[in-house]
């Protein structure tokens, strides 16, 4: 009778010890997660379906930035200087009869445009700031009424000055 009772007592102590160990392990896990030292729960929450995918992109963005793989976002780098080949000019005759000078300035972040148009002895000049855009920058508002220079072959010259660098692109257009 005494032996049976002792056996039962030993079994209970083992069970109690097991539970205590489990509790300690769970508590340790929870504390580590709560304090942010580990991040295991996050792997199983709903970010696995949606936000985790985005997180993966963010992770790559940050790592790429640190490694300077994607762009020159490292402040030590500088963008290459634009050349005249980075300027393209085109014209469009508007309904009101005026002529708009479209320009695409690649590799430009800012600067100033100086537009000069000659026709016969007449000259038209206009200055506009470079408006940045990711694909190509542009100088906006270069619009000239035909009456200003009259009809004929307009010699168009666009000089873009940015960070001390001057590039001039020319073209001509027949204005009737």
């Amino acid at each position, binding site marked *: 009778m005494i032996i049976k009772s002792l056996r039962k007592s030993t079994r209970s102590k083992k069970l109690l010890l097991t539970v205590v160990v489990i509790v300690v392990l769970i508590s340790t896990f929870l504390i580590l997660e709560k304090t942010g030292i580990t991040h295991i729960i996050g792997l199983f929450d709903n970010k696995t379906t949606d936000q985790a995918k985005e997180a993966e992109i963010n992770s790559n963005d940050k790592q790429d930035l640190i490694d300077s793989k994607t762009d020159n976002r490292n402040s030590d780098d500088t*963008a290459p200087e634009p050349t005249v080949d980075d300027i393209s000019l085109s014209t469009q005759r508007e309904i009101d009869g005026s002529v708009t000078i479209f320009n695409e300035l690649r590799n430009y972040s800012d600067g100033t445009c100086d537009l000069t148009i000659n026709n016969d002895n007449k000259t038209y000049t206009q200055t506009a700031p470079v408006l940045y855009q990711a694909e190509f920058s542009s100088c906006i508002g270069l619009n000239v009424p035909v009456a200003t220079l009259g009809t004929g072959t307009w010699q168009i010259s666009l000089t873009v000055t940015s960070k001390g660098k001057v590039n001039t692109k020319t073209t001509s257009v027949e204005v009737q």
Partner: protein
Amino acid sequence: MFKKISLLVVVVAAISIGFVAVSTQTTYAVAASEWKAGNIIDDALFTDADSMSAAQIQDFLNRMVGTGYYGRIAGQCDTNGLRISELGGGTRAQYGAAHSNPAPFTCLKDFYEVPKTVPGPGIPANNYGGKPIPAGAKSAAQLIWDAAQKYNISPKVLLVKLGTESAGPLTSDDWPFLKQYTYAMGSHCPDSGPGGSANCDSDYAGFSIQISSSAALLRYYLDNMTKPGWPYKKPYQINSIYWNIVESGCGASNVSIENMATAALYTYTPYQPNQAALNNMYGSGDCCSAYGNRNFWRTYNDWFGSTTLPVAIKSSNSPTVYIQSGGYKFAVPTMALLQDYGISSGSIKTLSDAALNAVPTPSVLSDISKSISYLVKSESNTDGDLGSIYLISVGKRYKLKDTQQMADFGFTSDQVRILPYGLIYPIDDGGQLASFISTTTNNVFKVSGGKKRIIFSEALYNSLNTSGKISNLSKSTARLITSGKPISDKPILIKKLTTAVNLYANETYYPITSMQVYSCWGFDGIQNVPLYAIADDSYVGDFGKPQSLKCMVTTNTGQGLLLNGANTYAIPSSYQISGQTLNATTSAIAKNLTVKSNLSRFIKSNNSATVWYIEKGKKRPISSYPNLLLLGYPSTPLSIIDDISISSIATGPNKLGNGQVVKDSKSQVVYSIMDNKRTAYTSAELYLAYGNKWSDIETYDKSFLDSNYPSSGSSVSRYLATDKADVNYLVDDKGCKILTSTILGSHGQSRASLPIYSASYYPRLNITNCQPLLKYVKNQSTSTVYYVENGEKRPFRSWSSLMEHSQQNVEISIISDSTLKLLPTGSTI
């Protein structure tokens, strides 16, 4: 024992599950079907520069840090990099050290930088890496707010741009590198690098100029996109928009851009998401997917709710107006509520019945209300605002702090309607609902105990609301809160729109029902009691059963006063009239008025000719001016008082003065009033002898006279005594006579039995011309002379008899025949 252990295991498991549950937080997620390439965000939201204050931006950054992939605990920055790096390399501190960015790390919420105002080389001084905050530096939140204000761009838009353009992103990264700040917005980073990669202009390096230049670009895009020569995306027309960079060869599709904000976004980031990107809203699509504008749209929705303002719609055949949001329509109970949701009634779009019916109402199976309401919450307690309850008013949502504040405002949970997060959250954040509210009519209230209490005095308001926090509500919203009594530290006058002015003193209302009362209390200039007009009668409440103010009052010390502005009267206690009983507060106000004199017994109002006589607690009308004179006017002056005071005194019967001659309508007997009794004149001669005229007689009902002036039982005497023995009178129509006591005795009259002469009893009897009465008398019509003695008149037989009797010294008084007849005739002399 085993059972106990099992229970313990269950408890531990439950705690663990609970921990996991609270560790995750779902957000408001948009679906691919909701994406509209032509309308990414409404113009009004895009340019709402006041949608967040600098403090709200800071609060947002404080909450966001640690919530993304590079984050462990929301709201905490891993400054020292103690946690394990997500990028490998041991702890974050170790990783940073190995990659030229040793700890400490500075999170966005803690980041300060000296603003870089013009493009130029270098990165501005900042506090990154544990450095002290440089002089002139501003917090990231302040820099964002400044840029929003300067360029009139919503700070929410700038935050979303920051959250989608920066690596990390910065908004949630809890161990950011300095590099992440340098070109955080991708502003002035042309896609001219290899393979279309960013080629950033180092003149725009630095967080502050990245924020300001990106806001400036958005503003410039908005301001110039409709001008000739605009080479980028244009609003209100079809644009070809690439799926990805040109170099990818993925091509483009046409998009009809519906507004300027969307055109600006496509100009800033000139790609649209393809279906693959939309199908995997939080992840990657395919090789042709671009994410900039998708991420902007999704993140804005996640953080700030819908990118489109609710639209009000109705059909042409029904007056019911709905708000359309999130694909559903919600009925609008009142136009005032529509305006409180920030939608003007003029912007309601009229649809065909079919079009309106095509917009569904929320499912009956959901908890979402079919109509909007002032008190709302979103359907989930785990969404972006954690199920906060809001009060909607004047285009703002005010967050209720807790159930106590609900009770303070008198709201119950039954009043709260559940609406989609996407409908609630885009409404401008008004912050936490304050315990002080103002209305659009410039009234302020303190709200507590389920009631709002108006405060009129600015000084008092400032002393009560030391925090200065106040929420502005519309009139209609304010009406939802029951009004209590005003809060005032001194007596005030409250002018309501539709009812009387009220004196409000010591938390009690006293209606002032007439201008007379207003004036008698001196509120028209004498009293220093401010008058406040309220814009809505419902702004004051708890009237109870107010007692209207009166001009006739009794102060708390028992002093009767007839208030009359600067000429207030004291009411003698002998009048036995009492006015409205005042308490200490109102007594103090009444006593501010100067008492100039006692109230006269004669009172009248300016609005009536009736003069009243105050006697024994009643006012008694005085029937005529002669009667007024008999009662003592003008030696006793007249007090002109207000009608209300007069009417407050009980009315008694007509007052007749002593000496007033009266008769009843059914009799010819004329009486004289003496001490509230009437005494009859026994003859017309005697009546006239007393100086009366026939026109002096006033006629009354017999019942009136019997009740109020009963007969004395005696008649007016021809003989009157005075307090002097030798001055007695015979009132005779041939002139009054003065009788010595001897002569009086010879007429058979006893002084003791005669009435005493009083001018008040015999007001018309002129005694100044009375002549002494002699013993020899005669009437005017006959020659017979009488000698009066022992109560008889003895005629003389002859003139000689008279001469003999008088010893040749005869003086004869002429008296009336009626007097003579009263004396029995004795033996002839």
